[in-house]
């Protein structure tokens, strides 16, 4: 797999939370083909690839979760003149919206612009305030009648954004949160060919993470894993943000630590990184991690969870920026970890003395 090519395709694919089936799910399904023994799509649209292990039954079950959904917009009303009102799906920063190009997925994809008043007609007082989302609208440049034929309340829209290759191996685009996590899983599955693996691996591209980790809730229940590893993004260093609240882009994946993470899973991930010579960073999570790991942990009678994060700048904008090497390293580290898991390790997860 060409990682950069996959990241490009994945970034350009659309899949607003709850609407992953429209595009990104099939991309992920195709990408998993050949890397796993079977691929299924569950009732909430999670794509689940299963790669069976070689250990004696009952084999350890490891679930990997990278979410394939992205934040976006949903049409709430078609106004006179064919202008489209919208609401956010997931945590959309209203300040990035004005004058952004979007694609509305109606009967056919329509390019639109989020319109604003020209500065000439804006008073200085008005200009001091950020636009409120409820005042914004999408202009698809078509007559009202045609808009009503093509667009329906409940249709979704995404940012329109090409990817950018920046200096070094820095890569920028929309929806890298968390298509980068899906990419990590694919790298891991490829890498696993090098190892003898005891465990059954359930590689899940989860749905609806941005609106409450809903895909992970049901897929974890269905899979009933012993161990669950979420692969998501964390904040990369950003001017104006204290250094200790962020991780460094390009300096390796970050391993989360805190109550959401089983200490033995954390230790095994750290060990795996050391064994293959990857420098991993640490992410401190005092309580909620806000990732699929948070819901996986409390599925059924409990799951031992871990969290690997790819440092990423400008989260939830259309120019999310990461280092490709971090994605690659995370995948290799994950594979090494999986190869190290045996029945003994799983048994030890319930021992707390």
């Amino acid at each position, binding site marked *: 797999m060409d990682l950069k090519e996959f990241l490009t395709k994945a970034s350009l694919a659309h899949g607003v939370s709850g609407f992953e089936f429209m595009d990104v799910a099939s991309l992920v399904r195709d990408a998993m083909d050949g890397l796993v023994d079977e691929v299924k799509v569950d009732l909430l649209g999670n794509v689940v690839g299963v790669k069976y292990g070689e250990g004696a039954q009952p084999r350890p079950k490891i679930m990997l979760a990278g979410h394939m959904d992205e934040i976006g917009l949903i049409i709430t009303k078609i106004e006179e003149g064919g202008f489209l009102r919208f609401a956010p799906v997931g945590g959309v920063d209203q300040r990035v919206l004005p004058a952004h190009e979007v694609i509305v997925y109606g009967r056919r994809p329509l390019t639109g612009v989020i319109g604003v008043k020209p500065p000439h007609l804006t008073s200085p007082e008005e200009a001091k305030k950020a636009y409120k989302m409820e005042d914004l609208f999408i202009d698809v440049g078509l007559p009202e009648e045609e808009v009503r034929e093509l667009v329906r309340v409940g249709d979704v829209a995404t940012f329109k954004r090409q990817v950018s290759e920046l200096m070094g191996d820095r890569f920028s685009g929309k929806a890298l949160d968390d298509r980068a996590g899906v990419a990590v899983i694919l790298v891991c599955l490829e890498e696993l060919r090098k190892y003898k693996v005891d465990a059954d691996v359930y590689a899940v591209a989860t749905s609806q993470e941005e609106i409450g980790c809903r895909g992970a809730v049901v897929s974890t229940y269905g899979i009933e894993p012993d161990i669950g590893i979420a692969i998501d993004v964390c904040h990369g260093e950003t001017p104006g943000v204290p250094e*200790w609240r962020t991780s460094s882009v390009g300096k390796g994946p970050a391993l989360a630590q805190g*109550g*959401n993470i089983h200490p033995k899973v954390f230790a095994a991930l750290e060990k795996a990184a050391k064994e293959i010579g990857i420098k991993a960073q640490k992410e*401190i999570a005092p309580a*909620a991690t806000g990732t699929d790991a948070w819901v996986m942990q409390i599925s*059924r009678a409990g799951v031992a969870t871990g969290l690997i994060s790819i440092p990423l700048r400008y989260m939830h904008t259309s120019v999310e920026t990461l280092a490709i090497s971090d994605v690659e390293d995370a995948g290799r580290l994950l594979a090494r970890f999986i190869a190290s898991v045996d029945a003994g390790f799983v048994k030890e997860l*319930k*021992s707390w003395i």
Partner: protein
Amino acid sequence: MDLKTLTSLSGVSGNEYEARSAIIKQLESMGISYECDVMGNVIAKKGDRGPKVLLDAHMDEVGLMITHVEKNGFLRFAPVGGIDPRVLVSKRVLVGKEKIPGVIGAKAIHLQERDERTQVIPIDRLFIDIGAESGEQAQGKVKAGDYVVFDTEYQELSPGIIKAKALDDRVGCALLFEVLKQDWKEIQLYAVFAVQEEVGLRGARVAAFAVEPDMGIALEGTVCADIPGTDKEFQATRLGKGVALSIMDRGSIPDRKMLNQLVKLAEDEGIPYQFREATSGGNDAGAIQQTKAGCPVASVSVPCRYIHTPCSLMSTSDFEAARKLLIKFLESVEGGFRP
């Protein structure tokens, strides 16, 4: 296990090792069988026929976590669980496994601008001083990710009034041990010492899933604001006025039959009780009630002033009332009471 021992143990949510080890040791010495799950809950069991009754007390407590060691040796931290930043300044803490002593300092009053004195210092501007002269020296002792507990001495302020940290919810754990002393014949008693209540009722949720109880009771150290400046109608509970019974909170509405039974038993037996006159807050009952196809629940609490701060107060008479009522209730279940 007594409250002095229980409250002196550390067990910030997600890092309950010390509390859990002591609880396990105690269970073993009492000859009670137990299991641990992957989240670290301890589930003890007594009795093997009759309805499954789950009693829950959480062993975790609110605390802090080190997020960063500064170059000059000061430690930055974040809260674990709900802590009002205004109670943190000028307190003693213990950092990490080694329990390194530290203090939460602040700019001296002499160095403050006039209007600074009226402002709340946000948590991310506070720091812990362990006496390290440099970041390197500090790094040898502590690291980001270490948990921090309050360093508060257990003390009896007057006969029957206890001051300690972590009464929420070691008082519940103490009640569990009281109940476990007795032999139960006609119920299957599951005593759950739960983890991670303070960060979202997480331990109890998975423990209840495993147990699949027929009824559940959360044992809590609960809010009590019988203090100057709070009108009677907003005090929630009063110290020394008996065991507190919840009417509703953000997590659950108690099963009416169970609540009525608790009230009836208290009245019949002359056990002092009060209603928890507030609906804010939530406890593990919320998670237990939502188990599988549903489980009737109630909450039985000991009022504790100043919970979620480094030092809280409780009355041993309220504890005694809770103990009695709990045992009466379980006996009534043995006698055939069902929700």
